[in-house]
């Protein structure tokens, strides 16, 4: 508790220079995080280079809480690939496997049907009403790698936002309390 008192003391006896240094340090942390995230977006070629698996529809391969690394390039989409796609009316992207591909090479168009490994039927129920196939623009990336369990941190912070605020508050306190 002495540590908290010390940090409160340091807030009270604040000098302009100290405040500026603090702001710059904070700015550096934020911008370096942003640089890392944008860099990952660049390398992976996808708008979201990392996704967390939220449902059990791809078990036993991917369980809820696993993290998937995505990559997107111009290579044609082939059956068996695990893709992450957005459906027009849904916010949250879905990670499922491609089971059918019908491609017209001349126009570059492709019709894709997906299905979760653990689901009985294909994903037509999940697509927008009347939509039978996915097109290239629906697909955000292919899963190329995976880390188990690490995504639980995101799920917990998403479902209980109070934990997010607690962590940010603790980090801010640590930042302020370091004297230099």
């Amino acid at each position, binding site marked *: 508790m002495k540590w908290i008192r010390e940090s409160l003391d340091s807030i009270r006896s604040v000098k302009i220079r100290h405040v500026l240094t603090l702001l710059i340090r904070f700015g550096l942390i934020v911008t370096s995080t942003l640089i890392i995230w944008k860099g990952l977006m660049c390398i992976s070629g996808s708008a979201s280079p990392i996704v967390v698996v939220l449902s059990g529809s791809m078990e036993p391969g991917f369980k809820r809480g696993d993290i998937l690394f995505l990559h997107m390039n111009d290579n044609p989409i082939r*059956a068996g690939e695990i893709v992450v796609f957005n459906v027009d009316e849904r916010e949250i992207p879905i990670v499922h496997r491609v089971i059918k591909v019908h491609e017209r090479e001349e126009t570059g168009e492709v019709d894709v049907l997906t299905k979760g*490994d653990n689901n009985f039927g294909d994903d037509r129920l999940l697509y927008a009403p009347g939509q039978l196939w996915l097109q290239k623009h629906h697909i955000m990336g292919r899963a190329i790698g995976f880390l188990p369990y690490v995504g639980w941190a995101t799920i917990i912070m998403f479902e209980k936002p109070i934990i997010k605020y607690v962590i940010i508050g603790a980090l801010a306190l640590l930042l302020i309390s*370091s*004297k230099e």
Partner: protein
Amino acid sequence: MIDHRLCFTMTYSNLHCRLGTLVNLTSILFILLFVTVSFPDAIIRSPSVDVHAEVSKLNRFRKRLNGNDEVSLNLNISVDLSSVFNWKTKQLFVFVTAEYKTLQNSFNQVILWDRTIHDRDSAKFEIYAKNKYLLIDQGCHLLGKEIQLVVNWYVMHKTGWMSRHNKSMSYFELPQVYI
């Protein structure tokens, strides 16, 4: 980056410093571990696999009410992927695709059958199986069409990159009339 020497010399908040060093160290170790585990074995030793798939019986070949061709096949699939399994393999996803070309679509590929394999013992099998998913064309271009059967497999490790392999197996010609 935290200058670790400062932890000992200047008046730094001890907890802050130690926590920072610990986080730094564990992330570096984690990244090193991830990189070494992801190192592909294929470069070191290429496993010998034996796979085979062919059509054993054409069950049904008809035109659906909506105008699309529909085919139901029985397949004879024999697979020996046990040499692909090692200490870091989590599972294999094996699937048989039918590939063909029509005037409308330059490339069609549909999965007819798939299975996930979790251990070395179940990586070797021979079965006669009805296709899990029907072969349905976009349209009715399958009369007399030759389809190619390909056995594919994805290797999924406990953590790290996934790799895809396949082997073209056999061809099958659909009859000129519906049955």
